[in-house]
């Protein structure tokens, strides 16, 4: 285990980025329990890497990418495929229900490929070019994902309002 990440350093990085990492995980995994597990994995991965980052910006970008990849790993795992969804469980588990807004639910219902770009663009304030570099996808693809996500969100929210 690297000496670079002392307990104090870990706590500082954690405080700074846990909200961001957790949100990414919750959006992709859709339940707080899994989001907590993967959030922990993300920080543990960082700690065990022992890597020193050039800047806060690089550290933040790395955490975003690690979070996304860890979520994808989780979704691909056979264990995940074989178990029941929390939505099917009648009794609430120990997981705390989040007080999600309509818009938040709409975001969570987007296809995975749109969620992270939408989050990074509208919440974290990254440009589409920065998002493209971070996630390793074409700039034009990012823009089309954002455009499509906006369209879908409007549609979803309009449907909700009409109901």
């Amino acid at each position, binding site marked *: *285990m690297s000496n670079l*990440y002392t*307990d104090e350093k*870990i*706590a500082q990085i*954690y405080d700074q980025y*846990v*909200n961001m990492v*957790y*949100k990414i995980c*919750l*959006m992709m995994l859709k339940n*707080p329990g899994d*989001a*907590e597990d993967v*959030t*922990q994995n993300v*920080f*543990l991965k960082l*700690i*065990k890497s022992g890597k020193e980052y050039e800047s806060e910006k690089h550290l933040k970008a790395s955490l975003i990418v690690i979070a996304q*990849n860890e979520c*994808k790993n989780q*979704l*691909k*795992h*056979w*264990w995940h*495929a*074989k178990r029941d969804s929390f939505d099917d469980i009648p009794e609430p588990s120990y997981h*705390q229900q*989040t*007080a*999600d*807004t309509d*818009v*938040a639910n*709409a*975001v969570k219902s987007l*296809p*995975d*490929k749109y969620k992270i770009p*939408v*989050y990074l663009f*509208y*919440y974290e304030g990254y440009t589409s070019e920065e998002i493209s570099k971070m996630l*390793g*996808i*074409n700039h034009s*693809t990012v823009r089309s994902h954002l455009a499509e996500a906006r369209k879908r*969100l*409007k549609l979803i*929210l309009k449907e909700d309002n009409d109901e």
Partner: protein
Amino acid sequence: MNKQELYSAFESLNPTEEQKQRMLDNIMAQKSRCTQKAATQIWKKVYIPACSMVAAALMLAVVSGVLAPGNVTNDTYLTRMSEQGATNAAVVSQYKESDKAATYSDETDSIKKALSPQDEKVPEYNKSTESIIAGNTSNKNEVKTDGSGPELEIIPGEVATFALNINTASVPLRSRFADEEKAPAEGTGEDVMVANDKIGAVSAGGLGASGSSGGAATVTYGEFCHNIGFDIKTRLMLPHDMRDITDEQVTLLGSDSRTEWDLVYQGNDNRILTINISRDIDQNMQYFENDSFIKTDFSGTHGVVIYDGLGYTSYINDNDIAYVVNTNITEAELTSLLLSMTSKR
């Protein structure tokens, strides 16, 4: 819907203070556990290589039937559970109640036990992950596929054991890599041994022992790698997530790096398909000759459906493309292919 609404929506997804504290506590606990483990590395480097040779010899002896696997091992439990048609939950429950659960507080002792198949050993039950920590292995031929088993966590220095995947008639083996670039083990074999932080395959007639076979991968305590499956029908290691393999009995060989997947399939008629999937943006359908084609479906996490009498679906990410090369190769060529796939990483 405006930007402010979106911003507020994301704000509402923040974890609670209780969640944050819980996650931090778990992270610190795991960090502390890994630090403890790291402190014994020097000792392990001396002890393990010597013991691993003994263990390898013993396991070969077990596999070849010289030593009867009569001890109570993790696999014996799994076998018994699967014969009874027990569910995964039942198996886990059984372990929880077992009064023979070993603890791993003494690392020296646990390593000694792991390397000595004669010891009666029941793995520790990890309450937080509801997983069984690996214990001794024995004759893998006893592993059944008509039941289900728990997910197992491998500890370096321990002889790895398996969970059962009833869908694919295979036994997925999971361990975590410190470095994601390291390839999982490949090769043929009946046992998988973790020693000196390496995973290898010990074979009674396949490619060979750890280091000389399709490869070894570094495992660090507490890390998980991609799934490695052991197909008891073909006795091939399947270092991949084996969901969705159909009744066509495709044997999936290959590895899964995060940037490029190389998959080799052997169909019922022994035709070999090599599939190379790279992360690139191309949402077009890809057609190839030799009676095979790939349909790409980028609706979320599902990806390639390969049609050539195989009907296999592979989970790849959006924006990946895949192409198939259909060819016939001999067993020797396949072996060579596996070795070369490992050495690429």
